[in-house]
């Protein structure tokens, strides 16, 4: 490189030394001379307009790809991640509930309850694999949550199996292992899973906001209008110089610009409205329902654990009562919030049913506790397990079923709208490229026709 530079210096010195005096001023003079002539200016204008057209194409494609990638991120990555994270939480919580219920029934756990526990653990692990595959890389809080879950779910399952084996031998030690497993679940696994869900849900919100945000599209539109102004000024200048009112090439370019602006705006408006609808009728109600789900499952596990661990330690019952207050219904409670969020969404009626289910459950739970506290432990256990009219198990089952329905239909509403939002950008990028090429060709051709008149 150094030698190359040195060579060039030597050449230029050699040129000067030969005394070619004309060579040095020639460039600037010719340029000055050329710019004074109309054809030179036209050529410059032509080059500028072609570049501007291509730049507009690039900008439009950039804008479209930003929105399209955010929208497809919502559909293909963020939403599945958020859904999987919720699955992990919900299935782990249900597994703990199933394990406790199996214990409540005595030494021989019912086949259905055992199967529910196994399905839950499998589903939680599948969800964990899904989240790890899609978003597990890195060292952030999410990655550390995933590692905790991957390490502790087998530990939990191991303790449950030990509890089961001891219980099968009729040893009181089994209940101690269940307590230990339950403490691991409540103390580590569920808070971690909840942290993961909160993080994924926040990412979903951020990506969704990026897909519907105004700043980028506004800047692009302003630049597009600026280019439109440029085209108008160019054609006015051309009209003065050439005494021709209309340059067909520039007119075509202008029309193409209008088409691409309209296309962009339409795609954006379409995508935005679908994604906002997905949010309002899908992800917001689902997130509110997820919070209800989390509290309901925890309260139900409390109900079982109070009956199993009836060592007089009333911490589970206190936890149930505090969850009951958090759930509501009432001003600012989870159920009321979910009802507000689900208003107008497909889950509206299911959520309304949930509110009355929950109240029936509280009543049945109160009777169950009363029984347990007055020596009718067996009656209390029956209420917690048997699907009899008025039992805690019946009202909880209904609440649980309505909750599942509500979450499923709102999740489906979200999926459908988000997919619409994502597909709103389909074909827009090639479209705006084609239109930008039309603009460039229009500018080139339009000015060439005028330039031809000077030859």
């Amino acid at each position, binding site marked *: 490189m150094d030698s190359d530079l040195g060579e060039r210096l030597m050449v230029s010195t050699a040129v000067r030394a030969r005394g070619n005096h004309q060579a040095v001023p020639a460039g600037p003079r010719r340029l000055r001379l050329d710019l004074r002539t109309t054809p030179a200016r036209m050529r410059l204008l032509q080059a500028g307009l072609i570049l501007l057209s291509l730049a507009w194409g690039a900008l439009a494609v950039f804008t479209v790809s930003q929105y399209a990638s955010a929208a497809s991120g919502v559909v293909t990555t963020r939403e599945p991640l958020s859904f999987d994270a919720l699955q992990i939480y919900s299935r782990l919580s249900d597994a703990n509930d199933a394990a406790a219920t199996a214990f409540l029934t*005595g*030494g021989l756990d019912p086949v259905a309850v055992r199967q529910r526990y196994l399905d839950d653990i499998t589903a939680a692990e599948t969800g964990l694999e899904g989240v790890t595959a899609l978003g597990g890389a890195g060292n952030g809080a999410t990655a550390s949550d995933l590692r905790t879950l991957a390490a502790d779910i087998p530990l939990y399952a191991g303790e449950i199996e030990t509890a089961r084996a*001891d*219980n099968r031998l*009729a*040893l*009181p*030690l*089994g*209940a*101690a*292992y269940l*307590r*230990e497993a339950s403490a691991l679940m409540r103390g580590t696994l569920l808070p971690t899973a909840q942290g993961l869900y909160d993080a994924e849900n926040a990412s979903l919100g951020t990506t969704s906001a990026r897909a519907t945000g105004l700043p980028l599209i506004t800047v692009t539109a302003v630049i597009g209008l600026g280019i439109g102004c440029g085209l108008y000024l160019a054609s006015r200048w051309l009209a003065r110089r050439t005494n021709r009112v209309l340059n067909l090439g520039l007119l075509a370019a202008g029309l193409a610009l209008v088409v691409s602006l309209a296309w962009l705006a339409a795609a954006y408006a379409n995508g935005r409205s679908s994604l906002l609808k997905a949010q309002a009728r899908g992800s917001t109600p689902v997130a509110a329902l997820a919070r209800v789900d989390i509290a309901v499952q925890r309260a139900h596990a409390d109900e079982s654990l109070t009956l199993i661990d*009836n*060592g*007089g*330690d*009333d911490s589970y*019952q*206190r936890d149930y009562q505090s969850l009951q207050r958090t759930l509501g219904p009432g001003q600012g409670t989870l159920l009321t919030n979910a009802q507000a969020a689900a208003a107008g969404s497909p889950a509206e009626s299911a959520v309304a049913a949930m509110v009355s289910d929950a109240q029936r459950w509280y009543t049945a739970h109160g009777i169950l506790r009363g029984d347990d506290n*007055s*020596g009718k*432990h*067996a009656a209390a*256990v029956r209420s917690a397990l048997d699907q009899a009219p008025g039992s805690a198990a019946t009202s909880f089952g209904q609440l649980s079923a309505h909750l599942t329905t509500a979450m499923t239909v709102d999740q489906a509403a979200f999926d459908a709208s988000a997919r619409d939002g994502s597909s709103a950008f389909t074909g827009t990028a090639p479209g705006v490229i084609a239109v930008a090429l039309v603009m460039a060709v229009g500018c080139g051709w339009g000015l060439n026709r005028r330039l031809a008149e000077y030859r």
Partner: protein
Amino acid sequence: MRPALRRTAVALAAAAALATATGCAAGPAQVRSMPASAHAAVVDRAVGHAAARAAAAACNPKAASLAPNGPPRVTTGSFMATTIRARGYLIAGVDQSTYHFGFLNPLHGKIEGFDIDMIRAIAAAIFGNPDKVEYKAISDAQRIPDILDGSVDIVAHTMTITCARLAQVDFSSVYFDAHQRILVQSTSSVDSVSALAGKKVCVTQGSDSGSNLRLPSGQRQPVVVSVPYWTDCLVLLQQNQVTAISTDDSILDGLAAQDPFTKVVGPMLTDEPYGLAISKKHQDFVRFVNAVLAKERSDGAWAASYTHWVGTPVQQLPPTQYASTP
């Protein structure tokens, strides 16, 4: 329930336990530093406690209960008649996780054991039916608070009669005599408290077993880990989270029965006379229960229950002593 009250009561019990430990310090610490033979190391903490407080009030836990008035009889106007019979069942605070004393048998979901047999005998004496009992499974820490707030009539829960506890509740006569020892994995070389220096030892919250594990000052003390139930201690031992469990041999035998890879080792550290706890408000009930226990001992029911739950040879309880007050 009544968390505030319960917390205060627990704090009181803890303070009392602490007071006992300090009060006993002069006695047991010296005994433990003596060359250990199983017999010499038996510490009658109650005697130590009484010595410390000799001026205030004589306390002998083995002779602190009220004498019965003849055979068990439910007299009109007594607590047994006005409250227990009127209610229709006895309410007993029991353990649900101590094998062979009070445990929930998963086979039929009922609580059974040696402690439970005592309660059944009392229910039979009141109602003529040993099943007229509501069992309230409680933790160690809840035994005294539940007696104090009246949520149970009686506690049968491997509960040692101590002077500190006698200040809060009444006890029946001694119905079982236990001694604190140490449970370790079968491969462990631990055979005394001094081998536990700096090691983790599991006890339950609300038991006073931890206070008997102090080594002479200057040595590293055992690290006491507290959990709600004795079976929770066995979980920790099986998971190698603690080196040993230390409490009454009666409880340790029940844990060892659930895990053949453990052994009960070391000298008898203390003397732990068990009594049934009853509120100080119901002295007539204390006398009644003592009458039931006297009958159980004399008619062989006590020995039969001992053989069934604890095994043979049947422990020979010393002759029952009662407080000198009439």
